[in-house]
């Protein structure tokens, strides 16, 4: 009988499959989603900076567009993704030095908590500034 070679996997779709996941698995899924979101944002940011090369009128017009509610909501998502991804990176770095591995679940709760607090603080500041 020939030995089957192709593994039983759906590839990257399995990264995002939430069924049957535990706390650490959810942390992994959100980490991947935030990484993809931040990468997309990086290109949008570079596009925005490119407006600077087109003169002040083009940049000012873009800034007016950026004050639309949908764009502000997008900025909130960037803050959420940045906070979560950065803080979860610290959690994983600590664990990788053998520190607080049995408490990885509690650390993740802390990461989510600080992310939520930071998001609220940023949201209030953003709304009061406009």
């Amino acid at each position, binding site marked *: 009988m020939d*030995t*089957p*070679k*192709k*593994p*039983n*996997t*759906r*590839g*990257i779709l*399995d*990264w995002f499959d939430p*069924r*049957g*996941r*535990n*706390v*650490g*698995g959810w*942390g*992994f*899924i959100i*980490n991947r989603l935030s990484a993809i979101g931040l990468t997309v944002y990086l290109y949008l940011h570079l596009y925005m900076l490119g407006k600077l090369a087109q003169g002040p009128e083009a940049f000012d017009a873009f800034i007016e567009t950026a004050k639309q509610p949908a764009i502000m909501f997008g900025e909130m998502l960037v803050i959420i993704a940045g906070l979560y991804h950065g803080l979860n990176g610290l*959690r*994983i770095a600590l*664990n*990788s*030095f*053998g520190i607080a*591995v*049995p408490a*990885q*679940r509690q650390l993740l709760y802390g990461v989510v908590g600080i992310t939520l607090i930071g998001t609220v603080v940023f949201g209030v500041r953003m709304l009061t500034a406009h």
Partner: protein
Amino acid sequence: MTEEKWTVKFVIFRKKGDQPPRYDSYVLEVDPDEYVIDGVERIWAFHDRSLIFAHACHHSTCGACGMRVNDVEKLTCITKIRDVTTNGGSLKIEPLRNFPIIGDLVVDMTRMYAAMDRVHAKAVHPLSAAPLEGEGIRPPKDVPRNNGDEYLRLADCIECGLCISACPVAGTAENYLGPAVLAAAQLQGLKHNPDLLDLVDCADGLWRCHSAYECTAVCPSNVDPGWRIMDLRRQVVGERIKRWFVKA
């Protein structure tokens, strides 16, 4: 066992050769304190003799009956039906992920067995060779405990493959050693097995782990592969720092 009877629908993954996969359903009357493997065996015995599945010891020693039960990796010989469904509910039974499917619920675990050989994993651990604290670990603070009382033995891996199936990155990195293998390497210790350093300290070794800890969640033997991978990282980082100060 009790006199209680439940009606449960078993939804079984089926695949033979190059045929496309499908799911077959079987409604069984079961004792809820029976184990999932009992239901699968009954389907084979009374409904469909062509069903392929693996089992042997029926007491969580051989590691042969690992399957995905309602999307979660389980050793089916110690998973009670009442713990994974309800009366009138269903049980979806699928083969482990990240291994090639031989047929129906049986997978080819060569990937794991071959890697176990590479890290010198012992087939049998005599008690004298399986100390509680293992090599490279600083007891008692860093050794995981069961409910804070007893030290967990570090040689209890039954090579069931549940951890590799549950690992979200094992499906996209075919050469990744995987949680069970890295746990075995951690048990051997880098101090007395320096040849393991190059094997585990690489992109497809312990740095491929993305800390989802699903391996630890599904392990039926409390091996805690997630903790072991992190401890192995600590050992590797320690070795690297040591090399800065020690001349070759």
